[in-house]
């Protein structure tokens, strides 16, 4: 828990005088608020004007999967919430790239291989998309399963091999 001492230039010079754990939770809470704040207004502003509003898409999807029971309550991550504007997504994308640059430049060359395999495992986050495809009975679940399997190899293999390497660096301690 050393993000005040090393890196996180935003916080440099600001003496928060808190226990490290408190710092971590404050950091988390701030990040939560920021992203929720970014997200909620766009949803509100967007829904009335969007011709393909969430409801329309939901109805269409439910008609196709012939499942009237769930129709009104259905709140999917994808089909129920196509509300974020592209510009909001782009904003998040650009900011995350900057955060990435800030974080990654501080990783020492000694750890570059574990960094690659670890970040590689994180890029397997596309598993979330694969799960949606495989879990949707109306689509092509078998194709989704292939994607789930590929992404899982990426995720599980990546994290495990990273763990294996990192343990080698500290085993003598």
């Amino acid at each position, binding site marked *: 828990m050393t993000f005040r001492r090393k890196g996180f230039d935003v916080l440099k010079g600001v003496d928060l005088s808190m226990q490290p754990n408190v710092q971590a939770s404050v950091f988390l809470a701030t990040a939560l608020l920021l992203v929720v704040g970014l997200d909620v207004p766009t949803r509100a502003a967007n829904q009335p004007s969007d011709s393909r509003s969430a409801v329309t898409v939901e109805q269409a999807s439910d008609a196709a999967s012939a499942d009237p029971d769930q129709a009104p309550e259905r709140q999917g991550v994808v089909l129920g919430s196509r509300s974020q504007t592209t510009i909001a997504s782009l904003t998040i994308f650009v900011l995350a790239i900057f955060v990435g640059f800030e974080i990654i430049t501080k990783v020492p060359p000694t750890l570059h291989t574990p960094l690659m395999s670890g970040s590689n495992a994180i*890029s397997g986050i596309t598993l979330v998309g694969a799960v949606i495809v495989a879990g949707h009975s109306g689509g092509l679940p078998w194709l989704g399963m292939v994607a789930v399997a590929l992404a899982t190899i990426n995720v599980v293999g990546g994290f495990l091999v990273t763990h294996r390497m990192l343990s080698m660096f500290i085993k*003598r301690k």
Partner: protein
Amino acid sequence: MDKLLFIKIVYIASAVLFMYGLKRMSHPRTAVRGNLYGVLGMILAVAATMWSDDVDQVSWIAGGIFGGAAIGVLLAYLIQMTAMPQLVALFNGFGGLASVIVAGAMLLLPGNQPSTSEWVATALTGIVGSVTFLGSTVAFGKLQELDLFKKSRRLPFPHLVNSLLFLTLIGVSIMMIYDQNDYLYVVLVLVASLLGFLLVNSIGGADMPVVIALLNSYSGLAASATGFVISNNVLIISGSLVGASGIILTRLMCQAMNRSLVNVLFGVMESGGGDDDDDVYSDVTQTAAEEVAMMLEFAQRVVIVPGYGLAVAQAQHAVQNLGQLLEEQGTTVEYAIHPVAGRMPGHMNVLLAEADVEYEKLIEMDHINPTMNTVDVAIVIGANDVVNPCSRTDKNSPIYQMPIIDVDKARAVIVIKRSLSPGFAGIANPLFALENTSMLFGDGKQMMLEITAAMQDA
């Protein structure tokens, strides 16, 4: 609480965990926990997705997850550390292909009418993901030294072919977005795969560290683009983190080789003429293991400069043994690591860590060079181009201005090598003929064992 909002907050938590996990990668002591934060983030994101109303059946998901996890565990435990670059290439490829499939399958999801920007994102995922997939597959083949990929074959007019393919991709993308035509996605994927194949197939083995770092970046960008397709922030954030990480490593690798990315991807590494080798090597001093052992006994500070040849000879443990012996007699032992010493960024550090070398002793090039003149004995094992002083002096050399480890400034240099043959750059190394350099010809591991034995006898 609104279920959808709750799921989105879980996604944010998981994105923060990824960021915090990568943050902790900044020190070996904190990195293990950092990696576990990443695992936790992934579990949260997947669990939230499974809980959402988009998922109304779990059998296909379970099948994919169990199958994939079994293969992943096997690969992660069976892989040799020397083969790490191949494995990362393979994983990159799988991630890229998964993104391609997800973006394509989303088009066919009933009731899903993608907006124009989502079509654009789908096209981008298709292009980047396919290039990543087939590019990584070829990189895997080259690193694994499969016969099929052994030669870096070049097409006639490679630039023309690649440019044409690229223009085709743009054309197909525009048509697909304009017509909202699902079928063109398949065409897009096929053409992009071909481009990925051709791009990586023409790149030589020495440039693989750059290629892997770049493909790493692409696999992240593909995941990010998929995030735009399904409007999911956790994909956008994690993907761009990985994208940024890959770009940084690519840049570092390019700097370490003193070449631009464009030059690595499209250029030809010109080989220096071998005709003046004999002139350069007219005055080479040869030595024997016993002599080296004697030198080491009186040395105060020894620096070992490993190259990939060390891993090929499987000499890591032998080197570590010698290092330990030297330390027992009170000598300072350090390992000077050039950024491209292995076959991927940081590879050499992992190989030495596997052989129980403490990470504090692994010194970066920039940190060790200023004190190189206080080194009594520098042992170069399995490295060549990264210690070639030509890069400082010879303006005509293909490696001119490439950063090197300045072993020639040490009081004595031992180069352990099978012969005087050139390294990847194909040029002679004047270091071998320097006054303070002695050549110890032979297999790296064998020589290490002989030196160690000679020291123990003394």
